[in-house]
Each structure stands twice: as C-alpha cells, then as structure tokens.
C-alpha cells in the first residue's frame, strides 16, 4: 500500500509518518518531536512527518489505508481497530491519566442515584470513558449497559460546558478537565473509579503498522527507543518537561507541573489494563470479539 511510498524513499532517506492527538496524555510525543528523538535514535537519515488528528477514527482510517506508520491514540479505538482487522500492533503504552466521574448534583453519590432524567456526558460512545462507566455500572448495577440511555456524547470541553451550565448532571472525564472543572465550586467527584480502573492503568497506547514493524525494523526500533527516551526525560526532568509542555497546553509551568505530578498521570511503556479492557469490551458488546492474546496484538517492546 501507501506505506511503501512513505517509508522507503528512492534515496537513502527513510521516512516515517506519525499521527497523534492533542492533550496532556501525549506529552512523550511532544518531547519526541521537540527534541528530535527519532532522528537521534535512527542510524541514518530519516524524515519524520508529524500529523495531529483529532479522532481515533481518523487515525484508524489512516492506518487502514497504509498512510500512517506510527500512531498514538486511546486504548478503546485501538481495540476496535485491531479486532476489526487493521494491520497494526501496540508497541507500548504511552500514558495513564486520572479519570473521574464528576457531577454538579449534590444528590448524586453513586451510580444508583442517577435517575433516568439525569444525563451523563462522555466523550464518545465506545470511548474509554464510556467503557469505564460501563465497568462501574456492571459492578454496581449488574448491567454494563444500564446507563446507556443516560449518555450523551460530547467532546471533553463541550461536556464541561454542559456540566457547568447544568445541561448534564455528570461527566466522566480526564485530566486536565477534571482539574479545571473542580475549580468551580459546584462541581465535585461523584464516585471513584478506582475499583474498576485503578490509577496507572493504560489510557493511551502507541501503535506501529505491521508493514513498518515487519519491513523496517530499524525505524521501528528507533521509534521504540525514542518513546522510551522521551518518557525517561519526562519522568526524570519533570520541571524542564513542564516548561516545554505548558506552552502547548496554554497554562503556566507551575500548573502543568501540578497536573503532571498527579498520581494518576503516568508515562510508561508497560502499563497494565490493556487486555482487561479488551476482554470487557468483547464480553459486553463493545467490540465484535476479543483479541486472541496480548502477544497477538503487541510487539515485544510492549510486553
């Protein structure tokens, strides 16, 4: 397919196209880009093309078309994609982020308090936020789909607007929105998600196309090494990293540092939870089937 064009240039310059999304969870990618880590880890000339896309669907489509070689996105669209047969594998997790179920309604203390007329906003049906809610619903109400009729799907900022203006009662969201929302005095956490999705479980994963993985092992290796190096940099130089990252998020460096120091914010290639998520999705109709095994959908660097 297309990848031939993008990865094997006529001359000796290799090419790789990387797609990722926007937000705090993608910090390692920002560092990789800013510091040229792939170029550094590749032995030879390499041209890296960075694109940002705003949805997992577009990334899946780019991967399926063979246009994208490496991508980072949420774990849920990855499970959907890999079970649908998109030829790619996870080369490692990228980040975990804190998730919370927020509410503006004082009468809500657990899922049981959410009556039929109360709406819950999640970023997307089938998104990780939706699955987390379903996990909680299964545990507490016995049915993963018990709250489906309360759901509205809106992007994080829209959901926040809705929550603040009272159009929805709850929102299951992630950093940094949970921090921003909780600055408002009428908004609090409704119920903790720790029982179903403990802090540090995978949220964003890194993917590599089968084509690149099989035919361009040097590039693949450079990507893996660069990701690891970026994570090490973030974990070891939090303040410097915050200085770089804060510009993109348009906040002060202190705020950024605060966000990064939240215990739920972890950058690591081997975070747990991927198969839990996959299996739960398969069992509860969120995906057609479960992947055969963790090994079948990952490369060695992720294991």
């Amino acid at each position, binding site marked *: 397919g297309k990848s031939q064009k993008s990865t094997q240039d006529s001359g000796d310059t290799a090419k790789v196209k990387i797609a990722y999304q926007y937000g705090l969870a993608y910090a390692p990618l920002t560092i990789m880009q800013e510091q040229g880590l792939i170029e550094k880890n590749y032995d030879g000339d390499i041209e890296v093309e960075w694109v940002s896309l705003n949805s997992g*669907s577009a990334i899946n*489509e780019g991967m*399926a078309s063979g246009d994208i070689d490496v991508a980072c996105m949420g774990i849920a669209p990855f499970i*959907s994609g890999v079970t*649908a047969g998109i030829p790619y594998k996870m080369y490692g997790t990228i980040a975990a982020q804190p998730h919370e179920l927020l509410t503006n309604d004082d009468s809500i203390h657990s899922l049981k308090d959410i009556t039929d007329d109360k709406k819950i906003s999640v970023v997307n049906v089938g998104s990780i936020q939706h699955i987390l809610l379903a996990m909680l619903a299964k545990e507490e109400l016995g049915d993963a789909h018990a709250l489906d009729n309360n759901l509205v799907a809106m992007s994080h900022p*829209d959901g926040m*607007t809705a929550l603040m203006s009272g*159009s929805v009662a709850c929102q299951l969201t992630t950093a940094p929105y949970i921090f921003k929302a909780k600055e408002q005095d009428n908004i609090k956490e409704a119920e903790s998600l720790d029982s179903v999705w403990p802090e540090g479980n995978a949220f964003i994963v890194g993917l590599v196309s089968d084509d690149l993985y099989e035919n361009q092992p040097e590039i693949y290796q450079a990507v893996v090494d660069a990701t690891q190096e970026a994570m090490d940099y973030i974990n070891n130089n939090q303040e410097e990293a915050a200085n770089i990252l804060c510009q993109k998020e348009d906040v002060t460096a202190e705020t950024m540092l605060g966000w990064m120091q939240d215990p739920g914010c972890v950058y690591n290639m081997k975070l747990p939870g991927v198969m839990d998520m996959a299996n739960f999705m398969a069992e509860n109709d969120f*995906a057609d089937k479960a992947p055969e095994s963790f090994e079948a959908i990952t490369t060695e660097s992720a294991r």
Partner: protein
Amino acid sequence: MKNLRNQIVFIVAVLVVWQVVYQMGSFPELMFPSLGKIFQSLIKGFSRDGLGAMTLYSLSLIAKGLLIGIVLAFILSGLSIVSKTFYSIYHMVVSLCDLIPGVALLPLAILWMGIGEGTIILIVVHSIIWPMSRSIMDGFRAVPQIYIESGKNMGLGKLGLVTGIYIPASFSYILSGIRTGWARAWRGLISAEMIFGTTSSGAGIGWFIFMKRTNVDIAGVFAALLVIIAIGIVVEYGVFHTIEKMTLKKWGMSR
C-alpha cells in the same frame, strides 16, 4: 425518459466501477468494501441497528430545521426589502454569520439551549438560514425593475410587493436556495449529530455513521450514505422537479 435512462446507466456504471476497483484489490478491503458487503451492512442496519428509526428521526429534525430556516430566511429577507437600513445590516450579518462554523457556535448554543434537540436544530438552522437568505436577497435584487414598478403602480404596499412580486419573480433563485438549504440541512444535521451523540432520546443517521466509523465498519458508513442518497433522489426528483414543472417551467422562467 431519456434523462432517466442516462441516469440509471450512470449509476450502474458507478457501481460496476466500484466493484471492479474492489476486485483489483489495490485498496485494503477494510477501507474499500465490496458492494455485497455494503449491501449486507444496509440490510443489517435496518434489521438490527435501527437504521430505519434513525433515518426517520433525522428526517424529522431536518423537517423542523428546514421549516424554521426557510420561514426565518423569508421573513428576514422580506424585511430587507421593506427597510433599506435593515437590508444593509442583515446583508452584513449574513455575510459574516455564514462564515462561522457550527462547531464554533457550540459553546454558546449549549449555554443557551442546553443539550438535546434544540441545539441540534439550532445548528441545522445556522447551516441553512444564511445561504438561503443570500439566495433570496440576491434574487430579490435581480428582479427586473419593471415588475416592481408594475406592482407599485397597481397599489401594492411594501409587504404586498414582497409576496406579490419579489417572491414569484425571484422564484428561480428561491428554489435554488431551498435546494441548497436542503443539502446543507443534511450536512449540518449529520455533523451536529456526530458532535452530540445520544443513545437515549433518539439518535439519527449521523450518529449511525459516527458509530460505524468508530467501530471501523466502513461498509456501514457507505450503507448510511446509500440511505441518504436514496432520500436525496426521492426529494430531488419527486419534490423539487415537480415544483419546478408547476412553476418556473410553466411560467417560461426557466428551461
């Protein structure tokens, strides 16, 4: 008759080309499904995924949005005939508002209308009222002077001029505007439905497309497009062509 034949031949040709491209296998099957697969998705959509109900729901929203949009566009464009001051302001408002993407309006819309049907209809109305107003106003300004003079001479007041002269005399523009509006309404609705998915009160065909994309079921996306296209054919050749025949063509104002 000959037109119909041409059109059918063309559609068949497109389908054949599609299938041939598929058979050649130069595109990944996941992204470029076979006709059979699309057709299966269509059947499954209706029998299992509630595509029928979703389509009806979308149609009901479009009907409301179009109605509101058309009525408002007529009233406001009509006022722009009655008052020159209003014209200069409304013309500017149309030129500017038409540029503003629906998504950028969302935060305000949510604040104002909450979430739900109201906001979706607002987005639909926003997507049609400006281009329709533009068509209508441009049409009004191109009305031959002599009809207006004739109307004034017959004693028509400002409002009478709008309904009695301007609207029929610019009917070709208006119909053009309504057709554009209809297409815009679909597009606006589908993007609004994608932004505001809901599984509760009723979901539309935009949501269906969104879900299918999320699940990387491209055949499902194309199946939904087929439904939209089918509705488009019915409306274009059932409604618009009939209106055209009964008005513009009968009046000798269009060929």
